[in-house]
């Protein structure tokens, strides 16, 4: 167990934690808005893998990560548009449609990847990092936390943007009303369907962006099923965060830390079977659910399609 707690190990662990946390954070923030508006977006895993694939393909051919990110977000949004058509406008069951979208897109992206790249296994060059002046010179934490791609800082900044949106804008009120009492929003003269659609599209965009980060920056390549449950973890985060973006960030860092630990522990040669180590993040999920699951307070109308004047 040499060097398990050395500075380099800890720095690598922290760096990996941030890298692993960003997709979770983005998916979690997206899911949070969708849930706030009353739509349980189970399809977020599918939106994420769509973003990962489209983002990778576009980054690969254009040579620009930013094109990849934008394309990834757009890819997630296209899937979300389908979800909002089926679940918000037509009022179909959100859970069934969400699962179907996820399974369908996992299969579709695996198939497309197989046709396009199964002989070449292309990789993207390592992403450029942006060192934050001064902060990145702090020993241990500097390199771990402040030498990342620009998108990482933007993702963290989104936490503040979301908090502002929820607490300070009319749109934030509308979202909460759409989730807690859609009929009240409707009689106030705001279109519930439109509000929910916007929220679902946003969640799809965020999930797609998270997926694109996962393939373009985290891995530098696409492999089938690369999201590996990150979208579902995002759902857990959103549910535990009680509507507060900062808790999504904290939760994402905890899960990210666990994911990073699995890699780091393998690298460090800890003498434990690899399967046990790979279970770690999911044990953490269960532990968090046991500890905080009761605290989760979900919108009253979550998962219930809105139909005006239903009786």
């Amino acid at each position, binding site marked *: 167990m040499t060097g398990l707690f050395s500075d380099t190990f800890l720095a690598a662990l922290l760096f990996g934690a941030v890298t692993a946390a960003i997709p979770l954070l983005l998916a979690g923030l997206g899911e949070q808005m969708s849930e706030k508006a009353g739509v349980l977006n189970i399809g977020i895993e599918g939106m994420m893998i769509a973003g990962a694939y489209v983002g990778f393909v576009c980054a690969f051919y254009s040579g620009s990560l930013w094109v990849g990110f934008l394309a990834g977000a757009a890819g997630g949004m296209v899937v979300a548009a389908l979800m909002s058509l089926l679940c918000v406008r037509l009022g179909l069951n959100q859970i069934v449609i969400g699962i179907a979208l996820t399974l369908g897109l996992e299969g579709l992206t695996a198939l497309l990847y197989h046709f396009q790249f199964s002989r070449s296994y292309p990789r993207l060059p390592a992403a450029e990092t942006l060192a934050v002046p001064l902060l990145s010179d702090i020993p241990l934490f500097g390199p771990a936390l402040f030498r990342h791609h620009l998108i990482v800082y933007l993702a963290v900044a989104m936490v503040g943007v979301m908090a502002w949106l929820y607490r*300070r*804008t*009319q*749109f934030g*009120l*509308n979202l*909460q*009303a759409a989730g*807690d*009492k859609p*009929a*009240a*929003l*409707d*009689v*106030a*003269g*705001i*279109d519930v369907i439109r509000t929910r659609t916007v929220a679902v599209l946003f969640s799809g965009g965020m999930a797609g962006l998270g997926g694109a980060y996962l393939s373009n920056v985290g891995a530098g390549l696409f492999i089938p099923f690369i999201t590996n449950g990150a979208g579902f973890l995002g759902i857990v985060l959103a549910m535990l965060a009680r509507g507060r973006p900062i808790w999504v960030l904290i939760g994402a860092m905890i899960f990210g830390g666990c994911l990073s630990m699995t890699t780091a522990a393998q690298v460090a040669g800890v003498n434990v079977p690899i399967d046990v180590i790979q279970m770690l993040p999911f044990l953490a999920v269960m532990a968090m659910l046991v500890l905080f699951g009761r605290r989760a307070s979900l919108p*009253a109308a979550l998962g219930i399609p809105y139909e*005006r*004047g239903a*009786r």
Partner: protein
Amino acid sequence: MGTQAPTPIVTLDAVTKRFPGIIANDKVDLEIRAGEVHVLLGENGAGKSTLIGMLSGLQQPDDGRILIDGVATSIRSPSHALSLGIGTVFQHNMLVPTLTVGENLALGGRWWQRPKLAEIAERVAAVAGPLGIKINLDARVSELSLGEQQQVEIVRALLRDSRLLILDEATSMLTPHGVTELGALMRRLVERGFAVVFITHKLSEAADFGDRVSVLKLGRKVGEITPERLRAIDRDALVAEIVGMMFGRQAGEEAVSIPPRADNDERLLEVSGLEIAPSGDTPGLHGISFDIGHGEILGVAGIDGNGQKQLAEALAGQRATAGGRIRLGQQALDGLTVGARRKHGLRYLTDDRLGEGTVGAFPVSINFFLKQIGEPPFWRSGIERSGEIVARGGDLVRQYDVRTPSLATPIGRLSGGNIQKVLIARELADGARAVIFNKPTYGLDLANSLATRQRIRDIASEGMAVLLISTDLEELLSMCHRIAVISEGRLVGIVDNTPGAGERVGRLMIGLAA
């Protein structure tokens, strides 16, 4: 139409609204004028809430027109209703419990803006102050009393420049003091030139607060008392007139026809001392005793929700009782299951035709035999015999004149009258001796109501005992031999159906001595 009076804010012209199985509003005409508290009075199921739903843009009429300031207008959505100046305070409040009062009032602004809480506070002070309403904008809605929430909703409607304020069952959750306050508030509103529509099922509130009273009954408007008339008569005369509208006979209804029965003392269905403990929102049953002879129809009258459903379900065996005995002929039914009671000949036709009586997605044919599933000849060794089912089902469809496209049509697609026919066919089959009807014509159109009533008379003529529970007094008067009145889970009197019975029953129903 008045020639000197200004155009009403809202006019309903023969508005009709149907839901699967029932007609909620049947050609309702209504005029709503500025400066008037217009009371819509009617029992549960009279169609008041549906009417409000159409005025507030939640539902669209199937037939008829709504005129706003004399112009035919289709109210497309709640926001459209608001822009037309129609503000509604719903029976179930429409505030988001997790937001503050101020935030609730801010809902509906432009999405990119900050909620203009300061501006709202100013406007609330301007609107609420003169009306004597005090509200704390920073309080979370879930922490307010129901009366306070209602005031918030009234203020919200006024903030939107409503000219017409609709209050749906606004007093149902208020304390007596809150009701008085609301009455005073409505008075101040109409004095300022607003129109108020006040929906209630309480006669006393209609008499106390109304400038104009319209009475709804089973989806139809059965009477209106104009302001001139209302000022001309005293309160007692007014109450009497409203009682007449709610419970009296209307022109154009069918004649009274009580099926003849042989005079005998033999009792068929005997019930004594039936008890059910009250629960949260039901009054329970207390010492219910009655008996019904061969070929006799005993009516049970009462305002809805006084234990009628509990009584029917206790007799049918669907609800556990805390005491009392039930005998059918020589057979004690106490403690027997629903199925055993059915075998002995006791049948129950529920008022919840689609929810409880039938399986909406199943074909008509299967619904005929729902209570015989697994039994021969329709099932043998657990296998469905579709030949038998179709043959017998076809007979029943012809015999009971069920209008269905086919035997395979899901029953939920049929009209209420036809669903009722299927239920009657099913329950009368094979050895029925006593039949309990719960609101058998609720939500049916006139033709089907008449057909159902005739069917009930026929059943009695065949010698069965009939217990007819109904909130429609004139239905009871048209065919019952005796009428019992239920109130708060007790039978407060049984009246022989002789001339003048209607007045006596009506007085018992509203808590006056017969």
